[in-house]
Structure formats: structure tokens, C-alpha cells
């Protein structure tokens, strides 16, 4: 029982970073109706940027976000303007392919620069831990969770308390109508893509502190993130957060109760069950557009 309780706590703590990464992904989907298959690769890119800063200048990974988040924001805006915006017909299908190609390009570039060896971000809080009741919780999980929470909160404040956020939400609800009332949809799309990508940088740091990674790690990551946003309902930020925490709790509990080898599989079993019972996801509206 204590083991299960410990698994639940770890599920919540690790769920935080997945919530952050999935929120960026679902925000991009919501605004542009495109699936950013390159999101996992962008997370790994963010992790490598911080890794490089740590290796070259011994900058603390969390601190490096001050530099990497704006950089990744710019990368995101450029990627959106150069590769996503020109797509006109058959946008949904083509955007999947374009972002897939971006993922491959990033993977190849990172593999060329950093090789394919597994690396991990280091910091003093990575190994030290503290005790709560009988559990030992590493500081890094708590710090990571806190950071993710803070960025998620900032994202929600931007979305729900600013005019720019209102423009984003209007675009998510109805692109054409938003355009009609004077929202510059192209600009909103580019900035939203940038926001999504910069949160990927933050997610990358937390992911890189708690997991060993290499350029190929993005496949595992994107399959989980996509599952999470389908579970939550595409385009729903609330769904992404709840879906992420739910998934990670179930996975960690399954690792204890069933076996660590099958924990990953439970992830997909949940997806199948959700699709059979509620194809639109927890908070989704049924997607009716044709591809």
C-alpha cells in the first residue's frame, strides 16, 4: 500500500512535466488545427540546449531557461512562418508530415552534434532527496514540478487574463470568426506556436533532469504526449493537464502493481478504452472537419 501511495505521489510529480509539454502541444493544435509531431523533438532540443550551456559554461539547467526559453520561442515562430504557414490545401495532413520532417531534422542534427549516447542533465538537486513520512523524494522532482506548475500558471494567466490570450482563445474556437472580428490570425498562430515551443524548452529541462535521453528519445516522448492530448481531448488545455497527471499516476501505479515492463503498455490500454467509450476524449468536442 505504501508502495502504491508512493507511486501516486511520483505520478503526480512526474505528471507535472508531461502536463506542461502536453499543454504546449494541445495549444498548438487548438490554435492551428495541426498536430505538431515535432513537439517531442523540440523538447529534446530544449534539453540539449541546456545540456550544452551546462557543459560549456556550467550554467544551472533551471537558470539556463532564461536564455533557452526565448531562443526556443524564436525558433518556434520561425518554424511556423517558414514551414507551417505556407501550407494551404490539405493542411492537417501536410502539417503532420512537415512537423514529422522537422522532428527527423532535429534528431539528425542533434545526433550529428552530440552523438547518440545517452546523456542526462546534472545539478546538485538531482541526487539529494528529503523524506516525507517514509518516502524519499528527490528535490529535482519537486523543483521540476514547481517549475512546470509556475509556467502552466503563467500560460493560463496569459490565455485567460490578457487581450492576446483572448485572441488566442477566439482563434481556437473559430478561426474564421476570429478573423472577422479583427484578430490577426496569422500573427496569433505564429506567437502561439512560439509559446508552445518555448514551453517545450522548459519541459525539456525537467525531462532531461529526471531521464537519460538521446536524440532518438523524441519518439517515445511524442507517442506519450499525443496519447495524453487525445485522452484529454484535442485542443483542451484542461484536458491535457488532467490527462497527463492521470496517465502518469496510472503508469506509475501499474509499474508497482503489475510490472515495470508493462507499465508503458497500460498507457495505450487506457487510450483504447477512452477511444471506445468516449472517442472525443475527456474534455474534447467531436472533431468533425475532414482531413
Amino acid at each position: 500500500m505504501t508502495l502504491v501511495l508512493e507511486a501516486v505521489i511520483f505520478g503526480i510529480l512526474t505528471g507535472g512535466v508531461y502536463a506542461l509539454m502536453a499543454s504546449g502541444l494541445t495549444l498548438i493544435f487548438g490554435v492551428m488545427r495541426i498536430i505538431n509531431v515535432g513537439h517531442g523533438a523540440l523538447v529534446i532540443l530544449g534539453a540539449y540546449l541546456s545540456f550544452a550551456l551546462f557543459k560549456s559554461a556550467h550554467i544551472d539547467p533551471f537558470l539556463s531557461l532564461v536564455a533557452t526559453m526565448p531562443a526556443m520561442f524564436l525558433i518556434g515562430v520561425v518554424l511556423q512562418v517558414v514551414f507551417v504557414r505556407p501550407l494551404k490545401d490539405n493542411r492537417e495532413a501536410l502539417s503532420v508530415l512537415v512537423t514529422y520532417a522537422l522532428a527527423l531534422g532535429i534528431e539528425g542534427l542533434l545526433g550529428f552534434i552530440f552523438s547518440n549516447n545517452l546523456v542526462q542533465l546534472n545539478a546538485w538537486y538531482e541526487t539529494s532527496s528529503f523524506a516525507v513520512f517514509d518516502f524519499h523524494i528527490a528535490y529535482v522532482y519537486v523543483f521540476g514540478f514547481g517549475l512546470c506548475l509556475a509556467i502552466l500558471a503563467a500560460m493560463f494567466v496569459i490565455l485567460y487574463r490578457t487581450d492576446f490570450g483572448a485572441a488566442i482563445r477566439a482563434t481556437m474556437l473559430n478561426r474564421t470568426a476570429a478573423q472577422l472580428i479583427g484578430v490577426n490570425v496569422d500573427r496569433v498562430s505564429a506567437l502561439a506556436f512560439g509559446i508552445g515551443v518555448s514551453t517545450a524548452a522548459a519541459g525539456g529541462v525537467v525531462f532531461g533532469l529526471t531521464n537519460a535521453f538521446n536524440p532518438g528519445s523524441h519518439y517515445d516522448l511524442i507517442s506519450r504526449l499525443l496519447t495524453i492530448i487525445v485522452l484529454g481531448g484535442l485542443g483542451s488545455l484542461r484536458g491535457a493537464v488532467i490527462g497527463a497527471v492521470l496517465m502518469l499516476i496510472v503508469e506509475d501505479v501499474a509499474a508497482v502493481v503489475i510490472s515495470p515492463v508493462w507499465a508503458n503498455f497500460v498507457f495505450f490500454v487506457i487510450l483504447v478504452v477512452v477511444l471506445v467509450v468516449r472517442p472525443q476524449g475527456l474534455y474534447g468536442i467531436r472533431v468533425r472537419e475532414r482531413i
Partner: protein
Amino acid sequence: MTRLRRKDAAKAIAMVAVVGFALLVPVFATDPATTNIAVFTAMYVGLATSWNIMGGYTGYISLGHAAFFGFGAYALGVMLAHLGIPSGFEPFLFVPVAGILTALLAVGIGWVALRTRAATFVIVTIAMMFMIQLLAENLSGLTGGGAGLSFPVPPWSGDFYNTPFYYAMVVIALLALGVSWLIRRSKFGLGLLAIRDDEDKALAVGVPARAYKLTAFIISAALVGMIGAVYGYYVTYIYPQFAIDPLIGISMVLMVFLGGLGTLWGPVLGAVILEPAQLSFAYTFGASKLYLVFYAAVFLLVILLLPRGIIPSFMDLVARVRRRRAVGPSAPAATASDPHAVAGIQSP
């Protein structure tokens, strides 16, 4: 009438020439390096054509077909190991069985995945692919898990080694093309195209969309599974990340988009152009990951410059030139002298 018949005859001759050329490749190119490229090109012709039956005709983009490819390879490998089938030509007889097993898997996956549409369907197919990969990893009693699964080593050697595999790939590719052609001409195929254009309207006019989509998905998966089975026997050793490789899944999709989504010959053209290029990239850059960067660059160029694919873009161009000639100032003369001018008005 005669003009139409002449066009049909020209088409038939072109087809015989292409098939004849495909069948004769091992005769005039004997060195293993070349026939190896031929095997993989024929493999991708088959894969792209099979994928197009689902992705091109119904518009449902599956990025998870690598799952069926790998499953077919595993199905054959497990059968050969457990039934104690010796190497030689016999394993080829079990390729259709692997196809049937893959079809059964596709019934399950399709039943769940096709509850969703558009973007969600794409995501579900990706997730399913990783699920199958994980199963191959975890069911180690059957599949050998991460340690991989060995096939009986084929007894052939030297220049002949690639030949049986080449013909096996060509036979399946021709089968896929034949099926694709038949579907395009059938009421079933019309139903699929209607689903692609507007699924709700198709439902409203009585197209049994769910059954049609599932059928197309199963056919497409079964063909891919058979190709995977031959591939497994060809490479003689598979492991989960190698047999169920997302890159294989995306490659067939890219080839279809390059050649022309939903056209009969587009996937063939895309595969014949891209696969040799891909192999030479891999050869030039070897183990270096830079090969992925080049692949991504080609990928992006194709999508951004030719989003509709070669064949539809070319057809458009031809139609536009002919129309201009037909209505231009010198139109009467051009129409009279150019026998194709009228026939050139085609639906895009």
C-alpha cells in the same frame, strides 16, 4: 472512339513495358549492390501502393503502417521458428499466412482507430504503432524481445541471393497495384473517394462508411504485412525498433505524397524516385545522423514545393497548356493538328 482506344492501347503498352522492365531487372543488373537497391525499391513500391489504398482513397492518414510491416515480419519469423520450416523457397509460401494474420490485427486496430477522424486518427495510428512495438519487446517468449528474432538463413549465395526476394517483392507490389486498380474502378472505390471528399455527405447518400473504411484499412494492412514478412526473411534478423521503425512508416507516406495522393501510379513513381535516393543518402553518410537531416530537407522540399504530388501537378499543367492552346488565338489550327487536344480535357 478510336482515339480513346488508341489511348487505352498506349496505356497497356506502357504498362507491359514497366512490368517487363521490373521483371527483367535481375537479368541485366546482376551485382548484389544493384539488386539490393532493386529489392528495396520494389518493397517501397508495394508499401506506398498499399498505403495509398487507405490514405489516398479514403483520406485517412495512417502514420502507423510500420506496425503492420513489423507485425508481418514477426508473424513469419515466429511461424518459421515454431513450425520448424527450413530455409529455401518454403518460407515464401507462408507469406500469405502472415498477411492474413496482419489482416486480423488490422481488424482490431481499425475497429478502435476508425472511431476517430482526421487529426485524432493520425495520432491513434502513431500510438498503435508504439503499442505493437512495445508488445514485440515484452512478449519475449514469442518474439525474442529486445534480443531479436532470427530467421533461417537463406541458402542462396552470390549474385543469386537477392533474386528470389526481388521477385517476391515485385509479385506483392503487382498484387497491390492490381488491387488498387480494381478498387479505383469499383463502386467500393467510389465510396472510398466519397468518404475522402465529405464523409458526412457520403453517409447521407448511403455509403456504408464505417464498413468501407475498415475494409480499405484491412486490405492495406494485409498487403503491408506480407511485404514485411518478405523483408524479415530478407534481412534474416529483426528486433522491435528495427522491424517496427517509424521511419519506414513515414517513408511510404512521403512517397505517396511525392507521386500523388490517391492516384494509381503516384505511389509507384514516388517510391522509384525516393528509395534509391534514400539508399544513396544512407550509403554516403553511413552511420552519421546527418543522413536524417538530408532526408528531412528532401521531405520539406517535397511538401512545400509540390504539395499535391508530381502526377496531379503534371496533369494540371498538361490540361492548362492544352486548354490555352484550344482557346488561344491560333486555336483552330492547333486543335486540328493536335490529336490529343480534345482528349486532354481531363478531370484534375
